[in-house]
């Protein structure tokens, strides 16, 4: 798959194979899913107290769901406009590739949908951090293995879309020892606004 920016600033995902397009369609669907595991993953509980969490869900739950649906719709519309690149679609299905245009104004909706879909899959298949790092351990569970691969596709695309905005991961992310340094003061992270 090739990613490039056109003269308008929009991103073009080119040579995207069929399975990537399918995965992207599913990303939009996952963020709207009413699967209880997915719902509780996407509508998080911010408090330790369950009564406060209930009230929170009552107050903000619908707002969040509408937002997720709206973003999914944006992604779905962009995918609906994807252009078929291969002219041999009917002869060699394996060669089918697509060009997807991500308008610059839709970039955030795409990023948030991809991140939300990863969380949804993680919750739905009860994955762990180890599963995502060592997918081969999941060979005995094809559904989980597929979910991990799908999360990887979302992760790669999310990185690409973030880099397009200048948010690449740092090459050297340091180590835990950095936090023992007297230069690092976690309290600096607190502000009064």
């Amino acid at each position, binding site marked *: 798959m090739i990613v490039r920016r056109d003269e308008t600033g929009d991103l073009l995902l080119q040579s995207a194979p069929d399975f990537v397009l399918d995965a992207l369609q599913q990303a939009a669907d996952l963020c709207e899913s009413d699967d209880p595991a997915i719902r509780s993953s*996407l*509508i*998080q*509980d*911010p*408090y*330790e107290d369950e009564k406060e969490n209930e009230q929170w869900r009552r107050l*903000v739950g619908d*707002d*969040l769901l509408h*937002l997720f649906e709206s973003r999914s719709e944006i992604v779905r519309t962009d995918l609906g406009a994807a252009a078929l690149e291969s002219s041999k679609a009917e002869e060699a299905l394996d060669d089918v590739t697509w060009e997807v245009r991500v308008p610059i104004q839709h970039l955030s909706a795409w*990023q*948030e949908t991809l*991140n*939300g879909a*990863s*969380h949804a899959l*993680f919750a739905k298949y009860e994955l*762990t*951090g180890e599963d*995502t*790092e060592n997918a081969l351990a999941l060979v005995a569970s094809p559904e989980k293995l597929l979910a991990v691969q799908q*999360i990887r596709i979302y*992760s790669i695309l*999310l*990185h690409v879309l*973030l*880099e397009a*905005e200048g*948010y*690449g*991961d*740092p090459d050297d*992310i*340091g*180590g*835990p020892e*950095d*936090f023992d340094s007297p230069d*690092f003061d*976690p309290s*600096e*992270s*607190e*502000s*009064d*606004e």
Partner: protein
Amino acid sequence: MDLKRLINGPWASVRPALASEESESPGTETLEVTKTKVAKPWKVIVHDDPITPMSYVSKILQEQFGYSQSKDERLMLQVHHTGRAVVWTGARETAEVHVQKLHRKHLRSTLESGE
């Protein structure tokens, strides 16, 4: 019939006596102490998770809180290495707004009452 009780209602007997009503013994002073309780600040905490890219965390923190790049990176690394970071503290209502915005972006985040 307790006329005073009828006029003032049943709470009359529990209403604290005003300083002027009190029968003070000569040479006794009444001190009134007013205490103002300051609301404890609330913390907005971002948690690490195995799937959200660090660059995404970085972007959201920059956009939402307007932190400098160096502060933003330190917070992001703190989340990554220690599992969590306090990204904001202050009034509860504002903290709730911040957490809701983070939840909109699917960033794992919670609220804690400061001690």
